[in-house]
């Protein structure tokens, strides 16, 4: 019962936050795409591409980087400024790119 309650609660959050692809696109353009590209990364880049990746995975990874439960000098800094809403938008945007 508790679990159900939590998941309903989560669902309502995500629909309230109705992750905007446009907001995600503009955030990704200024925060992520410099290194990770939009559809692909540079042939020379050491960074993983984000396009088409699983949305939930992207959200989890970004939260971990932000909260410093996953350590990376550069990602902890860059994700540090993102709100939950930003993270949802970005994950939603990148997961839809092909």
């Amino acid at each position, binding site marked *: 019962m508790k679990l159900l309650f939590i998941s309903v609660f989560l669902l309502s959050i995500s629909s309230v936050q109705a992750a905007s692809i446009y907001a995600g696109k503009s955030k990704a*353009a*200024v925060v992520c*795409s*410099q*290194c990770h*590209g*939009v*559809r*692909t*990364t*540079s*042939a*020379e*880049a*050491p*960074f993983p591409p984000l396009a088409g990746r699983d949305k939930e995975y992207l959200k989890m990874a970004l939260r971990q980087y932000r909260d410093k439960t996953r350590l990376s000098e*550069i990602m902890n800094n*860059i994700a540090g400024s993102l709100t939950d809403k930003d993270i949802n938008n970005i994950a939603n945007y990148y997961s839809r790119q092909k």
Partner: protein
Amino acid sequence: MKKIIKVNQTLMAGVASLFLLAGTVQAKSDMHQLYEDNCASCHGSDHGGYIAPAINSETLKGRSPTALRSLIMTGSFETLMPPFYGRLKDADIRAMVKYLQSTPKQNNPPWTIKDMKKSLKIYVKDESTLPSKPIYQIDSMDDLIGVAARGKYGRGNGSKAIFINSKTHKIVGEIDTGTAAHIIDFDPANSRWAYVKTDTAEIYKVDLFSMKAVRSIKTGYNGPALGVSRDGKYLMAGSFVPHNAVILNSDLEPLKLIELEGVDPDGKMVSSDSGMIIGTPFADIFAIALENAGQVWVVDLKDGFPITKIKNVGRHLHDAFLTHKGRKLMVASYDDSIVIAIDLKTRKIIKKLKAGCVPHVGGGAAVKVNGRTLGFGTNFGTCNNNTVVSVWDLDKMEVVKQIPVSGGTESPAAHANAPYVAVDIITKDRRARTIQLIDKKSLKVVKTLDVGGHAYFPEYSADGKFLYVSAGYAGDEVVVFDSFSLKKVASIQMESPAGIFSRGRVKYMTRGLSPDEME
């Protein structure tokens, strides 16, 4: 007397720095190599700046090393500066900051005819083995559009010249260029050949039928300037580093090296970057702009390659375009915000015309409207937010209008069959995503297109039906619009696309003039 003192000072400084360097030669030369391999293609081999700012002890004085280190790690948004995190070791990034902040702008490193000859590489020994017609479907070779794909890091596997069939919007060939491709020039006499020049001054001769590079040569350290003669027999290439230009034959064999120096309009003898180099359908000549000396030189393509020097053209010349069957040359001068009309027959200045703030005409554009030949000039700068595109009557050589646009502009595109002159807004905010379209008749901006990415270097297909625009930086695509409806019709993926060059240009000389008869 003054000159002697100056030489002595330079000598002393040189001797002093030799002593200072002696202790750390090894480390310094390692750092120099690291700089050459990662930074020099944009910031200049002499640390003096090129398409990116100068980075040396003078320009970086007082800058926080921590801030510089993060800038190198993350790159700089809305510019071509890529993130070096993960590509360079942190220790190297820190050492680079130290090295840059302690290294003055270097003297011109030598690059002689001997060095050039040694750098000549031949990829196809027997050119008779090349196919006699294109190995891909294309109605006319004029339909080819070449895009300089810089590659995110200005070098490596992303750096290519990419050729597209502008009727189908499909890629028909890719030439790896090692470092960022900058200029693509087509042989006007033989549709088989194109020449690609990189930011590190290599020239690739490309067989467009098989889409293969047949040979290459390194003509300097940095500099995009390249021209092809009207008969396709000669090339001329100019460098920012070092300050020289070279005439080559179509086998890329260097024939004559020309040192670029002269007295500038303020009476000072200066050594000069090479500005634009242009061949013209008007005569067997090249014209070259000496950026800092403010002179335009006309080189005759005959024995000894004699040079006519046109002096006092302007302060800091850069690029130019041709009009009147290639007899008149319109040269942009950055520092005094003028465009100078030169008659290539008399080799004299016709008139100096007012432009906007820091004129950068790109390839220029000229269109015939109601019997008048109108030239369009873009302007880089944003003085007092007074951003305009300049329009001149090229018959009477007078200013017609300074059309207000939303920001600084870099390159205009026009076509005889297309209704609009397209200009790229480059001001570094959201406006950089847009191009603006000027109606040829009303001379007003009638539409703003959001291209996404950093939109620049618009170019029409040879038939005028499509408008190609690079969406660079993080955009990584070339976007194609219908010239009339302005609807997006295609997107072509590539890494950091910049300059776009239609082979149609050899027919109309300057974009916007008739493709059917030379105007």
